[in-house]
């Protein structure tokens, strides 16, 4: 079960790296890495189950999360001009890392009942998936740039997918396909929105958008 744990470790590490790095281009690269780790995780499960369907899903995950989505993000970044760095996150980097540690603890504490339901190598790794979800949410809350928010959203989705595969060994090809298409569509829409925001306001700092209320 070494490869499975290795993949899970990579998943966790990349999520923490997203919090740590400020360069948006680095963040995107790390995100692509995470997509690859997720694909490896699915692949390991596929080998374990010996199911062709899961292999197909693993290939799809690899193409989408390590290829297409990072490509789209990079394209959005290329149009961003000078705003290449997450300069002033709402919570600074060291505090973010501490928060990540706390979130990991929380995830482990909460997932215990899930693990105890059916203890196996795969379910032992569920807390990692939950941690990735929580860290993704944390990125969404604390980062200012629209692009970092997008990465936070995708991080959450990666975490959810990971938990899904670890608990049920695959939620079915059709469901996975549907979710993937949704994510792709969301990214496309958000990319367009980011571009529009920049054209209209000259920046993508979400914290400056306060007019739209009541």
């Amino acid at each position, binding site marked *: 079960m070494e490869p499975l744990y290795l993949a899970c470790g990579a998943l966790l590490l990349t999520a923490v790296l997203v919090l740590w790095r400020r360069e948006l281009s680095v963040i995107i690269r790390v995100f692509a890495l995470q997509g690859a780790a997720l694909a490896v995780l699915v692949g390991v499960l596929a080998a374990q189950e010996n199911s062709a369907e899961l292999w197909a899903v693993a290939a799809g995950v690899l193409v989408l999360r390590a290829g297409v989505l990072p490509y789209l993000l990079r394209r959005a970044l290329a149009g961003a001009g000078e705003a290449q760095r997450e300069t002033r996150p709402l919570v600074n980097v060291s505090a973010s890392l501490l928060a990540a540690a706390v979130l990991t603890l929380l*995830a482990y504490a909460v997932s*215990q009942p899930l693990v105890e339901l059916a203890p196996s190598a795969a379910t032992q790794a569920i807390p990692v998936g939950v941690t990735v979800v929580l860290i993704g949410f944390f990125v969404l809350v604390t980062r200012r740039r629209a692009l970092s928010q997008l990465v936070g959203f995708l991080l959450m989705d990666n975490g959810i997918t990971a938990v899904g595969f670890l608990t049920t060994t695959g939620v079915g090809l059709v469901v996975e396909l549907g979710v993937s298409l949704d994510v792709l569509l969301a990214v496309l829409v958000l990319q367009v929105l980011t571009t529009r925001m920049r054209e209209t306001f000259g920046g993508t700092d979400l914290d400056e958008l*306060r007019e739209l209320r009541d």
Partner: protein
Amino acid sequence: MNLSATGMAAAVAVGLVTALLAVIRARTAVIGAGTALTGAAAVFAGAAALAGGSFSLVLPGVLPLSGVALTLDPLGGLFVAVTGGVAVATGIYAVSYADTPDLRARGVQVALPVFVVAMVLVPAAANVATLLVCWELMALASLVLVVAEHRRGPQVASAGRWYAVMTHLGFMSVLIGLMVFVAHAPDDSFTALREAGRHLSPAVAGVVFVAALAGFGSKAGIVPLHAWLPRAHPEAPSHVSALMSAAMVNLGVYGLVRVGVDLLGGGAAWWWLLVLALGALSAVYGILQAAMSSDLKRLLGQSTTENMGLVLIGVGAAGLFASFGDHTLAALALTAALLHVVGHAAFKTLLFLAAGSVLHATGSRDLDALGGLRPVMPVTTAAFGLGALAASALPPGTAFVSEWLLLQALIHGLPAGGVTAAIAMPVAVAAVALTAGLAVATFVKAFGVGFLARPRSDAASNAHESPFTMLAGMGVAAVVCVVLALWPAGILPAVQAAAGGVAVSGDVTLRLDQATGALSPLLLTLGLVAAVIVVAGVVRAVVARRVRREARLWDCGGGPMSARMEYTATSFAEPLQRVFDDVVQPELDVDVSHHQESRYLVQAVEYRRKMPDRIERRLYRPVLSVITAWGEAGRVLAPGSVHRYLGYGFYAVCGVLILLAVTR
């Protein structure tokens, strides 16, 4: 498939097909005719059910979880028939009345038959899910109709908001009550509930009943939940006001009787004392407000509160008698209440349609700007006059019969049950009597000031009679009013069947021969007509002997009489307003301006009177201000920052997870 089932199926089918036909251009005529046909089918179904042809139908696949279940028993049949009758008159009327740009809109036209179908289905529902779905459909369709003329001014939107909020709060209350009830029964069919109702603990049954009373009472416009009624009824188009006031509010009474008497099987005496008290309060307060009102349709709306109050007095008395074990008197009181429902539906339809005719011709509902309509709108005037007579509890009137029966039940109830009845019954009798007296004053004012004497505005003097279909709609209602007034024995067996189905086990026979109050409305009317003819004949004979001399009306030498010398609605109500000063507490404002030259010469006197609803002010304003303050406080939480909003979600998720981790 028996007759009542056929009738119901026809009503629903015709109504829905009519609603679909709203796409065509000539939709007003089609929708009006279709609505009338739906109503006719409903009358047929209701009559068949009253004649003993009940039916039951279960369609499990239509609604998720519990399915649609329909049963038409005599009680439901009565309300279906009443609703259908109102729909016939209003449907015919709507053919011309709804032919205005605002009312021709497709959405508004669709809502009319849908509203009627929903109202027909409510009394036929045989499980909680069906009842609630039809109830909500009825509320939504009527809401669309209330705000149909929203271009007329902001007051229409305000009325719509009041109506929407109150009707949904009422719905919530009904929902809570019935859900508590269903939780103690195997499923949500009325049969199961009826069985479970016998074994409920008094506390649970009390909760169910009070919740149902609040919900159904707000639909019936019972004080203190009446605030929407005098707002929504005047602002709705008149045919819709007629449907709401004559058919929809009845369903509040239906719900109360169905849940309280039928499903819960009677219950404690305090329930019915509460109903009786609320009914008496609504009757007196409603008619008092109506007596002060100078807006024709608002007056009619407030009179609806009064009439529903009278009905609730009957229902409350019936429940009280039943809890004392006197089932014959209970049946009499319930019969009186249901008869009043029928009579009220007839004359309120007629009155609202006539008021709509006036509005159509003059564009005004303000009694102080009307008057002098008799020569230009003879048919409408006659219709309103007949309606006013029917509404005031005087002998050849529709309301007289039922109120007389009600009084008989209340008076004979004295020996039935101990101290409670000895206190409650005389008070109720007094309330009914006071209401009847005030109703006469109110309708004399509405008819005399609104239609007789001279026109007070150009709009009133330039009025014209309404088109034929509107007059035909009024004619249908008028005929029913006359029949109900002169020959109540014709409908009494049907009403007794409806009352007997729920109030007592077995048939109800009304025998008032021994009682002091036996009289025949037909003979009474014939006597009255004969007396009028004799008096008129004598006067003619006396007058014919003298030489006739034409002269101006006596005017104290002040020149020809003008419309400004007439009684207005405000001045007519002034003596009453003085008498009930402490109750209504009007806000008066008298402005006297003098001539520059002399302080003794008055240039103009301006008199303004506002009649705020006291119950509404005391009860609703604190609640509204608390809600507003709550909303203002809530704005602090929404500063517009995306991160803040995301943060709420994040903290909530983490909080729940921590809670899980700690408590597990």
